[in-house]
């Protein structure tokens, strides 16, 4: 391989690259990073380059799609029959539950009318599929095949059949990126379903672990408690399962109890996700709950937004 100027090659001294150019390029990248970090130009640039980025995502997801299709094609009859039976049983159970629920809903409607509550629980959802690619193993983000063309907006909650998965952080023309609740930069306001205790659940970076670092030490919480969204912060609607407490210990200072929870959603297994349409959120602090005296006394600082910057 002939080089352009073989006279200039030294074995131990400055060769093809000079330090000045390195410094110039390093400065350039640092300026870009600072501008991006401060002003968030990456979003506008990404939206601009979405035309290029989206096909790349689709192509990268192709092999796993093909593999899945292949597995389906060679699945044996008995496997399919088995799966079919299981699904039918699940459907039956779900149907029974829905029937019971509809009776309860009707009753609820009546009671609410009696109480003169205006807040509606009607949910608009959009079903979307995951695009099976991996952006960065240390940031828990997923790519979804619905974007601004499907009226997806930043901040919409993402759910699967079992609970909250995360929220949309970035929207491209036909795809969007969602931040999972297990990402270390994510936080979600929750309450314990059994006692109504309000707290915040943080992601840890592990796909099966959520962190509840600041629970008052005297509060009533135990392993197995279910966590549901509290609806505070106005990002996630109230009442969706988030996780289940699996471990409780003291934090380092001994002032708070710290718990570990397991996410309710199948974060690494879901293939389809639901995107909730924006709900009309009441502005200002939420109305006090009448039937639960514990809840009203928690400090107002817990009413944070869903995501930390």
């Amino acid at each position, binding site marked *: 391989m002939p080089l352009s100027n073989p006279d200039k090659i030294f074995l131990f001294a400055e060769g093809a690259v000079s330090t000045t150019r390195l410094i110039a390029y390093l400065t350039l990248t640092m300026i870009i990073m600072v501008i991006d970090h401060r002003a968030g130009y990456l979003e506008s640039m990404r939206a601009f380059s979405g035309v290029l980025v989206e096909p*790349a995502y689709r192509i990268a997801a192709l092999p*796993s799609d093909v593999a899945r299709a292949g597995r389906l094609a060679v699945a044996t009859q008995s496997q399919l029959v088995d799966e079919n039976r299981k699904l039918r049983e699940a459907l039956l159970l779900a149907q029974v539950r829905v029937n019971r629920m509809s009776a309860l809903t009707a009753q609820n409607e009546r009671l609410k009318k009696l109480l003169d509550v205006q807040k509606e629980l009607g949910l608009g959802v959009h079903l979307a599929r995951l695009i099976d690619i991996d952006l960065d193993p240390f940031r828990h983000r997923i790519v979804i095949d619905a974007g601004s063309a499907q009226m997806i907006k930043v901040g919409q909650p993402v759910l699967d059949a079992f609970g909250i998965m995360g929220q949309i952080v970035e929207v491209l023309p036909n795809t969007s990126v969602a931040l999972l609740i297990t990402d270390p930069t994510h936080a979600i306001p929750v309450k314990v379903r059994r006692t109504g205790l309000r707290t915040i659940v943080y992601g840890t970076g592990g796909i099966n672990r959520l962190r509840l670092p600041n629970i008052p030490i005297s509060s009533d919480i135990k392993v197995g408690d279910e966590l549901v969204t509290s609806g505070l912060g106005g990002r996630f609607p109230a009442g969706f399962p988030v996780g289940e407490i699996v471990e409780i210990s003291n934090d380092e200072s001994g002032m708070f109890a710290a718990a570990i929870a397991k996410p309710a959603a199948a974060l690494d297994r879901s293939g389809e996700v639901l995107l909730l349409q924006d709900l009309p959120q009441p502005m200002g602090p939420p109305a006090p709950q009448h039937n639960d005296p514990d809840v009203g006394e928690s400090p107002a600082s817990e009413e944070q937004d869903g995501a930390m910057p």
Partner: protein
Amino acid sequence: MNRRRAQAWIFIGSLLLAFLLQLMPLPQPLLLLKPWWIALVLIYWSIETPDRVGLGFALLIGMCGDLLSGQLLGEQALRLVVMSFIVLRFRSRLRFFPISQQALAVLGLLLNDRIVVVMIRGFSGDPIPTMGFWISPFIGMLAWPFVFLLLDDVRARLRAQES
């Protein structure tokens, strides 16, 4: 002329493949093991054809990587600029290393890159990743001989075909 074009195709094709491999999904336990393919391919090309791969090119590739992964714009660019600077500086020596020694050098480069990442994350206020973060350079070291031999073989075949 024709050979030139074929060389360019290999060059571009290997980089595109590296980007796709980077985005490729893996089962959850294997995710941490994914080597940084883009860096491996770029190291290869800056050892073999330094007239084509300079610091500016590394910057460009890094920006593409940032756009694809939706990270802080410029992060991968900075990492690749640092890496290709070191490679280009020591190119004359790296070129004549036996493959095992080359793999060790690649390990050094990738570990250095991890330190750069930790610095960037520290400055931008992101959480510092867990211990699994340090596995990937070792996998990169193991993958290096294959990347090197594969690309070398493809190019050698091309040359043999031409003559």
